[in-house]
């Protein structure tokens, strides 16, 4: 399999996962904002670290309005993490690997892109938001299902798994980080709303129902953290994702070093005693995880996409995949 093709497949899936997780997050967070008191001063800006570069472009000297921030997260092509940009990038990568993908999957990606171009702007207003974002999530799930169900589980498929689970692990940690950061501010308006917040975190990861089934205790910060970071069966939990990443990598050539690295990170995470950490330590742990995800990405890239194998005489120009960010 060509390195370039592997890289495009990997990024296509990362962008799709980013769009799905982002849509879910925005939908749930929007509902959360309705539950929390206005005096708490929360707004869309608080989740920009998950979906966007920290700085929203401002017009003039005034801070952007809440609606402008939401637009930035949903639609702005200048924001590589926006839902629309993620979908456009996913489609571009799919288009250039079209021969590899099952035909229906390509068509579904194309439809998703059309949907994002034509409909997504309507989700800025609260009235239609959950319906539209739900539709987006469904469409990505449909693509995931098509790929899992009709694509041969060879090398290309393993890259799909690697991309999906790495992105998912990153998104989960970012969401956890935002929740921890909010609570760390110690705003008195949020006192008494901790559980509401952690429930929202679970919902944004489609985990509330599973949490209730498997944890069976009241929603409690340490339990939620344990569930989302260390559970081995919940498919959005970070440990689960890392298992999948290891398993998929193991099926590819030259993967020994990467698998060892990922396994070490996973074991380290397993050792963390989350019930004993305060919020600042949680933040540090999550920070370290995110750095490690970055290292894993670099290792993946160096193993298969851009290995250091340029022979001395001629290196040739290397094509870049669509907007890898």
């Amino acid at each position, binding site marked *: 399999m060509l390195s370039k093709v592997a890289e495009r497949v990997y990024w296509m899936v990362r962008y799709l996962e980013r769009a799905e997780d982002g849509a879910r997050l925005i939908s749930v967070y929007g509902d959360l904002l309705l539950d929390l008191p206005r005096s708490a001063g929360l707004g869309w800006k608080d989740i920009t670290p998950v979906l966007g570069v920290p700085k929203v472009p401002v017009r003039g000297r005034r801070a952007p309005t809440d609606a402008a921030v939401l637009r930035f997260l949903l639609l702005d092509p200048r924001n590589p993490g926006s839902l629309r940009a993620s979908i456009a990038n996913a489609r571009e990568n799919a288009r250039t690997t079209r*021969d590899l993908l099952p035909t229906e999957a390509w068509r579904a990606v194309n439809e998703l892109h059309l949907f994002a171009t034509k409909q997504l702007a309507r989700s800025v207003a609260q009235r239609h938001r959950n319906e539209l974002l739900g539709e987006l999530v469904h469409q990505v799930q449909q693509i995931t299902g098509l790929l899992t169900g009709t694509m041969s589980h060879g*090398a290309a498929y393993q890259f799909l798994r690697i991309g999906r689970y790495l992105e998912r692990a990153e998104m989960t940690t970012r969401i956890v980080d935002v929740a921890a950061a909010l609570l760390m501010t110690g705003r008195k308006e949020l006192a008494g709303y901790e559980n509401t917040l952690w429930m929202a975190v679970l919902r944004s990861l489609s985990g509330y129902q599973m949490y209730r089934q498997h944890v069976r205790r009241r929603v409690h910060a340490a339990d939620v953290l344990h569930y989302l970071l260390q559970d081995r069966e919940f498919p959005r939990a970070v440990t689960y994702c890392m298992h999948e990443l290891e398993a998929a990598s193991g099926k590819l050539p030259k993967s020994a070093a990467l698998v060892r690295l990922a396994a070490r990170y996973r074991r380290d995470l397993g050792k963390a005693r989350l019930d004993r950490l305060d919020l600042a330590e949680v933040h540090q742990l999550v920070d370290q995880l995110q750095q490690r995800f970055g290292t894993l990405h670099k290792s993946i890239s160096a193993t298969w996409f851009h290995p250091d194998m340029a022979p001395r005489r*001629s*290196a*040739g120009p*290397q*094509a870049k995949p669509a907007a890898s960010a």
Partner: protein
Amino acid sequence: MKINWGAYDPGSHYDELIAAPGQPRPGGTALATYLSSLTAKQLRARQDAAERAIVEMGITFTVYSEGQNIDRAWPFDVIPRTLPASEWRRTEAGLKQRLRALNCFIDDVYHEQRIVKSRKFPRRILDSSKGYLKACAGVKPVHRVWAHICGSDLVRGADGTLYVLEDNLRVPSGVSYMLENRIVTKRVFPELFANQTIRPVDDYPSALFDMLTSLSPRPGDQPEVVVLTPGIYNSAYFEHAYLAQRMGVELVEGSDLVVADDNCVYMRSIEGLTRVDVIYTRVNAEFLDPEALRPDSVLGVPGLLRSWRAAKVGLANAPGTGVADDKVVYAYVPEMIRFYLDEEPILPNVPTYLCADKDSLKYALEHLDSLVVKPANESGGYGMLVGPHASRREREEFAVKLKHDPRNYVAQPVIDLSTVPTLIEGALEGRHVDLRPFILQGRDLYVTPGGLTRVALRRGSLVVNSSQGGGSKDTWVVG
């Protein structure tokens, strides 16, 4: 309401299906009989079904000048073009003969140049040829074959003679549409395949693959063959991807390949560097190697020519083949057949005036209103003048260009191209067609049965290229 076939009158044109009103030609009887049993509505329904199939199957092509619109659905007319097998046998022999002679010529040009020394081919034409590559002098490719894939365009005149209009030796395209046209037609007219013998075309990818593997520098092993494409924005990308998929080989771009210090070509894969034995290049020759050819090319692979000259990789078509893909050189092909093969040409050339010759130039300038004048090196039907269809002003402007650079132009009488019934807004009208069979040469020669029939969809137009409003038809060799 049934279509009134009696009313279909080819007029002064040679029609491929109908000899005279109500009288089908050999090979066309079953088709004509069947079509005359359909109403206009039924025929329209078949055309619609064909168009839907094309969209569903994703058969597209791209046009350079379009803004946003990258892919267009392939324009197809559902009524096939028929050829009797008896005629095809002779045509096939003539096409093989031509490619053999052309390959002898190209090899000769890069070695002793015997044909020039015996004054059968003017040196000045060779010297002013744009396709000649110095880097190819002295190279001995496998089988001494340079043009492995050739698309020769055939046209039929009003007298029924099939002429060779030109030989496309650089990166001839269209074969994937020939294959897809057949698949679509089988869906639309399955009955017709059941009750007559129509030669199948789908063994082309297999024949192509066999020819390519015979070029491998490592015979005996399982050679690694790749298709080299300029990429998704190229107008023929659909075909590159299609052929790669049908042959079961990797589709690569220049950036996926690298030439190492051992002069071998490798592709960048997840396993590391994988050796490549044969490259079917759909990148134009000048762009193949920024080290040896155009330095600004980002489509090629630095060192590729070096690898090919060291016989570490096979390249189809070989670089330097363009020396024979030239309308001036075309005029000498009959001579090449006599010189290299000691045979008489089976298929005739269209009578051609080389404007480099003073008398021919004079003739051309005096008869611009009845000639087709073409630049020696363009393809796609661009830059040419169709005298009878041009305005006086266009002819005058063209005359200026002609006087300025006569070597670059050839003039030919307008061939009144044959027609085939075509579905135009619910009625059947004759439209001009040409034919592009594909000929492969490796160790042996192979010719596609029939080929791609291109049809000029605009009434009276003789321009069949898809980039200029042409469409295509399925082609049947019957009997």
